[in-house]
């Protein structure tokens, strides 16, 4: 296969060089003469009607002596020629077919707008050869014979050949389009990586860096305050769940133990009574502080109050926690009495009082547990709220608020 592929390449290469060499020789004349066809076609298109070309033929013939001056000018404007090169072929074909179609006319109009007015004179001169071929077959054959050759050949191939030669390698390089892959050098060689994926990776890394930076060194006192507040908030989020779980466990335990007789229940539950009371107190205190922090009740705004009373925020959890706390404290005396059962059994001598106290305690204990679980559910719905943290971060309002406060008395 390789043998087969190579020979054609070799065959192909020489003609390119030859062509380029030939074009080197021909370049200058070609450039001069190319302009004529391009502009000629433009004129031919502009005057797609047969009347205009005929008028232009006469001046061409008369101005033959002026030809050298326009050629020099044309040399200075190769880029325009190159741009016009491809369209000319299409236009010439169109003109040859004598199709005054809408497309060709449109293209020609566009070109007209772009070309400067000075060129009109030159175009008139160059229009003649093409027109002569089409309409005046033999009239200017002698003058335009050389021009004709130049016109015919550049139309297709010469245009392409002339331009690339000095930059032939560049033109090839330009043709190669950028890949989506980057090749990154590693120890083992080059590793292929998708550009978009790499970009995403870098973006993520930068994001992580940005996120990490503020957590590192604390630059101001308020940042330190906020960081401690965030730690407390996270810790209390755990405490909320723990409290609810303990409440659930406590209710079930109590109901299991209540299968026994009252005194039996007392003897079993006694060791738990005071620790449970103390534990519920500290847990409820932490939960209440945390929920107060989250909804920052000391800094109420009108909108926040409205939303709170319509239960759109989790502020009701503060009320529930306070209710649970008060219930928990109000049965502290019964729990202390249970705690003292082994030390002072006289306290539980009266069976009627005992059963009534235990029943009261059971009910309040159940209510406490249910309230704790309810508050936890309410709070977990709005777990992202952190008004105290926001207030500490913003903090701007205090100055404004104070100016208002001070303005009124003054």
């Amino acid at each position, binding site marked *: 296969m390789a043998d087969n592929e190579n020979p054609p390449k070799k065959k192909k290469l020489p003609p390119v060089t030859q062509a380029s060499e030939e074009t080197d020789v021909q370049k200058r004349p070609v450039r001069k003469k190319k302009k004529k066809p391009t502009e000629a076609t433009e004129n031919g298109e502009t005057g797609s009607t047969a009347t205009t070309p005929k008028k232009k033929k006469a001046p061409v013939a008369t101005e033959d002596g002026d030809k050298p001056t326009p050629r020099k000018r044309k040399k200075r404007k190769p880029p325009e020629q190159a741009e016009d090169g491809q369209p000319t072929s299409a236009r010439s074909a169109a003109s040859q077919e004598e199709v005054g179609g809408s497309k060709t006319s449109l293209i020609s109009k566009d070109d007209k707008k772009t070309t400067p007015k000075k060129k009109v004179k030159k175009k008139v001169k160059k229009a003649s050869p093409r027109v002569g071929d089409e309409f005046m077959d033999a009239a200017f054959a002698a003058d335009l014979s050389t021009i004709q050759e130049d016109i015919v050949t550049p139309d297709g191939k010469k245009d392409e050949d002339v331009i690339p030669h000095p930059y032939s390698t560049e033109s090839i390089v330009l043709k190669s389009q950028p890949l989506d892959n980057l090749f990154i050098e590693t120890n083992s060689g080059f590793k292929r990586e998708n550009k978009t994926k790499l970009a995403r990776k870098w973006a993520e890394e930068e994001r992580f860096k940005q996120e990490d930076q503020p957590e590192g060194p604390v630059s101001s006192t308020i940042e330190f*305050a906020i960081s401690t507040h965030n730690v407390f908030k996270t810790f209390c989020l755990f405490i909320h769940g723990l409290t609810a779980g303990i409440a659930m466990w406590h209710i079930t335990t109590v109901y299991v133990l209540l299968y026994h007789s009252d005194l039996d229940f007392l003897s079993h539950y006694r060791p738990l009574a005071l620790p449970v009371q103390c534990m519920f107190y500290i847990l409820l205190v932490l939960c209440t502080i945390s929920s107060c922090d989250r909804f920052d009740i000391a800094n109420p705004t009108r909108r926040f109050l409205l939303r709170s009373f319509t239960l759109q925020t989790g502020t009701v959890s503060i009320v529930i926690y306070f209710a649970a706390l008060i219930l928990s404290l109000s049965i502290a005396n019964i729990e202390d009495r249970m705690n003292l059962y082994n030390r002072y059994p006289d306290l539980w001598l009266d069976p009627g009082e005992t059963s009534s106290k235990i029943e009261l305690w059971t009910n309040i204990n159940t209510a406490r547990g249910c309230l704790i679980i309810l508050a936890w559910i309410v709070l977990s719905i709005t777990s992202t709220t952190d008004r105290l943290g926001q207030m500490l971060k913003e903090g701007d309002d205090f100055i404004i608020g104070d100016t208002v406060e001070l303005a009124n008395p003054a």
Partner: protein
Amino acid sequence: MQVERYRPILYLQYFLLLIDIVMNSFIEMLRFENVILLVLFVIQDVCIIFAVIVVFLLFFNTYIFQAGLVNILINKFKVGIMVTFAYFGLNVGLHVWEMTLRWDEPNKYIWETSGFIPLFVIQRTGAVLYYYFYKRTALKLGDPRFYQDSVWIRKEFDKRR
């Protein structure tokens, strides 16, 4: 104020609050002897006094206070200050009452004393408010704008003169 200076102060304030919470929660389980109970009560009350002193030292450290605009600062933190003093009063009252009831027998069942349970409930519930407002005040005093000069303070100062 420097972070290095504010950090230990804030930790101290948290520590004082923690002591108070632990005392409030577990003092019922620490009724070994009347003297121990008394010492614990005293420690708790002293902690509240320390907390108040720390907050006022922070107040004195602010630029607003040093500029003579004490009213602004008091207006700003009046709720916290009031709650703290109320809680301190409740705390001392309850401790004195409980100590007189328990002095002879630390584990005595004292809840039948009329009025004791309501005071107990109010003191313990007020403690939550004290923790919340004290913590909030401590965090708010971390705002660096309290400790630096500003156009607003100069305007207020001019108004006063």
